[in-house]
């Protein structure tokens, strides 16, 4: 072809298309001849306006069905419908040639029918137009097609002719079958007329219910039986109960069983209210147009119907009624969802004993909160047989939280007893994990062991899997208390935590244990496990302690105690290290002022030389600290550490270097912890001559400590006295003069704020009263007055004839410079020394008012 002919042809095509209103964008996808043919036809029919009113897809349709152009022109000129409606029909028709397969009249009948939605017009024309459906059927069909759209995997074209007829069934478009019709096999079942009729009836009556697969299958398997059962049961129900009943009946997934049972247990309706009718009769009473009609009718019936049968209230009332009404007489209307779920579980699993308890102690059940242990699904489905509960257990459950997901990972046996769950629900996941490592066959034994460990909070924060297993094995031999009393009984001041740490490495330390004497030595062992692994006994450890204890070298780099001195006092040094001195002081000196290093040097040197107490009570330091002359006899009494024992309580005074250094750690961390206490700079003030620590144990367990101070006080404000003190340097022994006392003041034995650990409030009181008794005796010996911190007000000191009163307590001079006085506002510095702190304290009644004593 010549170039001109080709171009002229193309120009003519473009002109023709433009004249016809056919979009030139179609050139991309369609052949030139086709477009030319369509455009010429359009132009011959002068149908440009009609073409322009069409959507692109409709014009594309016309390319392969040009015959339809005449239909189109006629449809539009006769104003049969909106052009968009025709466009949608043509777009949906795709490859189908409408002009060949349908007459103009057929197409008009569909397009003119307003009941047929535009986007259903082609499907309707193709499959349903010939059936001459009445209005209601068309409405159901449109809804049915909409429901079919949700099926996704198949469409109306995939259905057989018979199946397609079911699209006119009301049930198909209802919520009732919305999930079922997604299953292609279900459509085949609809061909069974009885089944289809049953579903239709149910869809009318079950408002808002979506039929599940299991229920659909049971309805299919037992269609006739269920139909008959429903007829019998519904006859006994008032109209307003019917919808609720059917929803609950379907939800219970035991359709035949429930109907058979209900047939017998449901009483007949009394004559005056009976509308006794089969299901189909009930359905036929309903206006078929909408489901809403059904509900309206039900509400009408509400006003007039008998409310005798209440079992359709909720799932629980339904099941309770069905399974023998074990909760008869209990109002089940206002239970929470979780409470309801538990009772549903109990009813359906025939937990009769539990239900009886709930019924009899219903208030204890209703107070269970959302996250209560008992309401946790895992608990009653897996961990606990609720039938084993007693009324007390139900009561106790109120305060038991559900087991955390973290802990649930470790629960590997089912079921547990209530006592086990009671413990595990509150325990940290570490204890839950350890519990499952215990090998005792009896639950009680396991519980005893874990209660002890959990109660004492013995476990370290982090443990590896094998450590749990190891500890489990050790504690399966005997409980921790037995380990402590039998294998570690000879170790003084060993804590439960240390005992656990020893058990974790028992194989490595067992041979050394017989010679270990203190808790500090235990720490030493645990810290130096690697270094001692080839050492046969603890004596050898003690001999080699200078080599083993690497901290000492670092400590002495700070203290700078001379080699000669250390050589002369090698035994003392070993004892110092043996007792953990290097660890304690190295930690203490980690971030303190330079001046404190010198103080620490003097104290450590004194301890190593075995002369610590000489330094603490150096010459007349005590008198200088409190600026009061004291007879030597009184000073001797003060220095003497007393002990007392009353019942399970044991109390003792402590003034040695290392035990006192640990006061901020021994009962849990406090602000004067030698490691990182906020006021650790005040710690060395405890070594002033007028200060001691009173320690106490309960039943052998370290449980109490408080600082006691020998000072002076007055009932009125006294003038400030100033004097600077420091620790004696035994290397340069010389101290000076003393000072006169003050007749207006009283020598005072002051009991500072208490610290407790691991004992109940009752036991705390027991300890406090024993301590007060002991100190009263000591005060008497000292000819001093016992004054007790206001912190003891909750311990009923009134029993001991103490009353609360204002008192001016002398702030003694400290060789440390800084001291921490709990009862006088915390840290006190040099500037406060020699003054009197005003405060409320507990004083003996007879001290305050001497006449009382006489009386």
């Amino acid at each position, binding site marked *: 072809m010549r*170039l*001109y002919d*080709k*171009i*002229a042809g193309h*120009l003519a095509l473009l*002109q023709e298309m433009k004249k016809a209103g056919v979009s*030139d964008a179609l*050139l991309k996808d369609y052949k030139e001849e086709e477009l030319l043919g369509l455009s010429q036809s359009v132009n011959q029919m002068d149908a440009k306006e009609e073409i322009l009113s069409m959507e692109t897809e409709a014009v594309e349709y016309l390319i392969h069905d040009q015959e339809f152009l005449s239909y189109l022109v006629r449809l539009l000129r006769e104003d049969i419908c909106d052009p968009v409606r025709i466009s949608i029909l043509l777009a949906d028709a795709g490859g189908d040639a409408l002009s060949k397969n349908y007459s103009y009249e057929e197409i008009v009948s569909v397009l003119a029918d307003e009941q047929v939605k535009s986007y259903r017009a082609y499907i309707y024309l193709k499959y349903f137009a010939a059936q001459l459906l009445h209005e209601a059927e068309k409405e159901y069909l449109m809804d049915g097609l909409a429901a079919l759209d949700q099926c996704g995997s198949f469409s109306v074209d995939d259905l057989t002719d018979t199946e397609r007829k079911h699209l006119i069934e009301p049930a198909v478009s209802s919520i009732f079958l919305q999930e079922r019709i997604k299953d292609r096999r279900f459509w085949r079942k609809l061909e069974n007329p009885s089944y289809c009729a049953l579903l239709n009836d149910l869809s009318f009556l079950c408002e808002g219910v979506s039929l599940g697969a299991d229920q659909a299958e049971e309805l299919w398997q037992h269609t006739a039986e269920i139909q008959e059962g429903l007829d019998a049961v519904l006859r006994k129900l008032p109209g307003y109960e019917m919808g609720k009943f059917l929803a609950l009946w379907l939800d219970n997934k035991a359709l035949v069983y429930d109907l058979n049972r209900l047939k017998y247990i449901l009483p007949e309706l009394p004559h005056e209210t009976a509308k006794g009718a089969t299901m189909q009769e009930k359905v036929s009473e309903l206006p078929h147009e909408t489901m809403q009609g059904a509900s309206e009718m039900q509400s009408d019936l509400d006003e007039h119907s008998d409310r005798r049968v209440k079992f359709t209230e909720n799932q629980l009332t339904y099941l309770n009624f069905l399974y023998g009404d074990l909760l008869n007489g209990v109002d089940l209307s206002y239970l929470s969802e979780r409470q309801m779920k538990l009772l549903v579980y109990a009813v359906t699993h025939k937990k009769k004993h539990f239900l009886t308890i709930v019924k009899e102690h219903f208030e204890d059940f209703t107070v269970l909160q959302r996250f209560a242990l008992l309401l946790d699904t895992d608990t009653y489905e897996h961990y606990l047989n609720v039938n084993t509960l007693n009324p007390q257990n139900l009561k106790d459950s109120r305060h038991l939280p559900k087991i955390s997901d973290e802990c649930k990972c470790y629960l590997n046996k089912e079921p547990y007893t209530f006592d086990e769950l009671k413990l595990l629900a509150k325990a940290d996941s570490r204890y839950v994990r350890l519990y499952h490592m215990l090998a005792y066959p009896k639950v009680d034994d396991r519980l005893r062991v874990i209660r002890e460990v959990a109660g004492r909070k013995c476990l370290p924060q982090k443990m590896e899997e094998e450590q749990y297993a190891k500890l489990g094995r050790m504690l399966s031999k005997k409980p921790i208390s037995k380990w402590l009393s039998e294998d570690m009984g000879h170790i003084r001041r060993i804590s439960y935590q240390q005992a656990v740490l020893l058990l974790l490495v028992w194989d490595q330390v067992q041979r050394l244990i017989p010679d270990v004497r203190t808790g500090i030595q235990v720490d030493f062992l645990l810290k130096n496990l690697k270094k001692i692994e080839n050492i046969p006994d603890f004596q050898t450890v003690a001999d080699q302690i200078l080599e083993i204890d690497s901290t000492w070298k670092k400590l002495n780099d700070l203290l700078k105690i001379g080699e000669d001195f250390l050589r002369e006092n090698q035994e003392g040094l070993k004892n110092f290290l043996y007792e953990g001195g290097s660890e304690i002081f190295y930690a203490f000196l980690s971030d303190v002022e330079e001046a404190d290093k010198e103080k620490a040097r003097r104290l450590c040197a004194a301890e190593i030389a075995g002369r610590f107490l000489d330094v603490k009570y150096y010459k007349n330091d005590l008198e200088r600290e409190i600026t009061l002359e004291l007879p030597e006899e009184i000073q001797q009494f003060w220095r003497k550490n007393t002990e007392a024992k009353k019942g399970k309580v044991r109390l003792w005074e402590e003034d040695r270097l290392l035990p006192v250094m640990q006061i901020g750690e021994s009962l849990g961390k406090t602000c004067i912890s030698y490691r990182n206490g906020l006021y650790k700079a005040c710690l060395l003030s405890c070594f002033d001559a007028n200060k001691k620590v009173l320690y106490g144990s309960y039943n052998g367990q370290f449980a109490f400590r408080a600082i006691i101070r020998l000072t002076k006080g007055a009932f009125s404000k006294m003038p400030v006295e100033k004097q600077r003190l420091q620790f004696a340097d035994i290397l340069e022994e010389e101290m000076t003069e003393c000072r006169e006392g003050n007749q207006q003041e009283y020598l005072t034995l002051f009991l500072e704020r208490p610290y407790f650990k691991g004992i109940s409030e009752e036991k705390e009181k027991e300890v406090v009263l024993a301590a007060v008794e002991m100190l009263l005796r000591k005060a008497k010996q000292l000819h001093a007055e016992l004054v007790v911190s206001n912190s003891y007000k909750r311990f009923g000191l009134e029993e001991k004839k103490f009353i609360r009163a204002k008192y001016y307590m002398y702030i003694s001079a400290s060789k440390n410079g800084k001291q921490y006085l709990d009862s006088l506002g915390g840290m006190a510095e040099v500037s406060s020394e020699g003054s009197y702190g005003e405060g409320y304290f507990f004083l003996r009644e007879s001290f305050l008012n001497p006449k009382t004593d006489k009386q």
Partner: protein
Amino acid sequence: MCLDGTNRIRDYLYRSLKVENVKTYQILLLDDKWDSMHSNWFLIDLTDSKWQELYSLIERDSFDKWVFETLKVKPYTKNQMERYLQVYQGLTNEDFYQHFWKREDSNLKVIFRKLADLGLVHPLGLLKSYLEEYQSNADEAGKKWIMMIQYLEAYMDGLETMEAVEMAFQIEKLFGILSREPFPIEKLLLDSIGIENGYRGLHFGSMDLIRPFLDIKGHQQMFCIVEQYMLKMHPDKYISFLIKALSSEDNFFWFPKEEARKVFLKLAEISKNQSELDGLRRIYLTEEDFEAVKAERREREQRHLLVKQRKKTRDIRKDFSLYVAKARKTGCQFETLWNYVQNGMHDWKSQKERNYIIKRYLCSLFRNKTQIILEKKEIENLCKLVQFLFSEEELTFFEMREILGRIELKEEKLDEAV
């Protein structure tokens, strides 16, 4: 310091230093990173045996890099090139051509084209092999040819050789112009003939269909491919494309002028925008014909303007009639007319028409009246109106006197007595 016109010693070296032996080469290569400043230093002419030693003295990557650079810039003859590649193979124990299968390198694209021009590689043959393999197993072929395809594409870019055009024809025949696989031929073709696809759509300013190595048939084939593409993909630009193709007289070599003229006449017949064809008219019409066309167009434009003006006048008169009808007997007719004249912005012709129509109205209003009694305010407005029309030379002095001579002031008392 200024050293022979350069600022730094290194700059001086870049300009003056010649690398004459491998030792110097080696030292400079180790030290210097500024490739662009001294590209000639490191070229490796393997046809000269003294440089062959470099293979064992420098790293392989560096060696290849400078071999590629050398082949790119040096104008070797076919024999020299063959010799070079032989030496390369002898030294490296590798066939140089294998680089085209294994690596992507912009210098290699230039070398590929050079080798094709020297007849040492055959892009069309390679393309045929590739297309055969592609049609039997596209995935396998894709993997095998992944590198070589880029060299074939680069070779076709610009359609600068007979072979390149032949390759494009082959691809178009098998896959059509729109297919992106195995080659994006659409872009290649448009870029090569200078059709730019910018943000405003296609632009034909640089379109050039002439390929001196192509015969008439070849040109026509290329044109037909593009013409078909334009029709289908850009029908709105089809006429612009044709105009551009017809506007180059070079194209008469393959598009006979007589045929081209017929196309032009067809375009002239259907085009809505005749002015865009003026360029073609100069080519395809005689000067007389062109002048006649221009005269006819002028006349048509004139007619069009006249019709437009008439319509405008008609509209003004219609509006004025309505305006006056509303103002009549309101007692403020001349105020309304004065406002009509004053208000609005109008082109000169419209304003003239407005003045004219008012003048006509005034003349006709006063023509058969001996006296018109008006209130003082109306007389003021009439005077302003008459003065304006007189100054605009719409009213003659005579007409003005005639109008003003017939007005009489309305007496208030007289009015009250009535």
